[in-house]
């Protein structure tokens, strides 16, 4: 089984927050579920040390973007996270910034291709 390569952290600023806030809008999840959802949704393209996700979750919770509750399922107690109204607003801001940034990068890349072609 191939181990996924870790994503270059220089390109990851704000990305974990964006993904967590998006994924947790659909349903509440605990840490392991969230990481598996990220891996599945991104086809293993985005992968960091899985334990690091908790530092992002805790920071978002302190900022009021997430709320957590302890739930026992099948004899195991886990902490489930869900998005708050503040988190939804934060997600919209982050998504807008990310879309603008991605568009700008794409236009630079398109220009680069154009320059090479001519």
């Amino acid at each position, binding site marked *: *089984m191939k*181990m996924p390569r870790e994503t270059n952290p220089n390109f990851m600023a704000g990305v974990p927050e964006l993904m967590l806030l998006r994924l947790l809008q659909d349903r509440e999840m605990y840490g392991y579920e969230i990481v598996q959802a990220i891996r599945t949704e991104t086809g293993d393209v985005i992968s960091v040390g*899985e*334990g*690091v996700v908790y530092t992002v979750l805790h920071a978002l919770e302190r900022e009021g973007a997430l709320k957590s509750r302890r739930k026992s399922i099948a004899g*195991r107690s886990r902490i489930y996270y869900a998005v708050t109204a503040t988190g939804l607003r934060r997600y919209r801001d982050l998504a807008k910034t990310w879309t603008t940034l991605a568009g700008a990068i794409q236009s630079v890349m398109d220009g680069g291709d154009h320059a090479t072609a001519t």
Partner: protein
Amino acid sequence: MQPPLDDLRERLLRAGLAPRHVRRYVAELRDHLADLTAHERSAGLDVQTATERAAARLGSIQQLTQAMIDRTPRSLTARAPWAVIAMFPVILLLCVHWGTALSLMHVLTPVRGLSPASMPGSYRGLISTVSFVATYLMGPLFLSGCMVIALRQRLSSRWIALGLALVAVFSAAFGFHMQEIPATADRQAGEVFTMVDFVYRQGRVSVSGTLGLTLLRASVLFALSIAAYRALSHRLVKVRATQST
């Protein structure tokens, strides 16, 4: 090999993160590691390989430590140990003495015209109990509180020594008394008050005697509390060593 999560906890506490944040982080990592190991085992790997792969996926201890430090504010105890360990307990101790004296005076209002000797037994018992607790137990109680805070946050020993010394001096200096004086025209009998424990010689306050008594009591308290702190520290180290093997 299992990742040393106990080592991670120690690193985070020494870096000044609040114990409650560290406890939760380590607990969630343990659960995550258990899920990862179970997942790798279900894919057909043997125990050792599954454990190693799970640990690699969780992240290195350096990575997990740095990520938590970067995103979590340091606790008040770590940012201002001088306030939490040294200043706050002394102020609180003085407030408790003052508050206790005021409360007792309020409770004793019905008997405030009487000399202590002629008070009902229940009032005398109440005064004796409160005096004993405030004078002899309050100091050790505050010293224990300082020790627990310092041990939980893994504070450096110079802060705990300073805190224990200050609390020992102040709790040794202040006593709680019922003044056994008869009522006069302008003064009620049996005033309850908290004050520095003056030593009288031939009817006058003896500065050397007062200082000597205070220092003696403070030294005993300080020595006992430092010994208790060292014993608890060693015990914790042993427990952590046992847990990690």
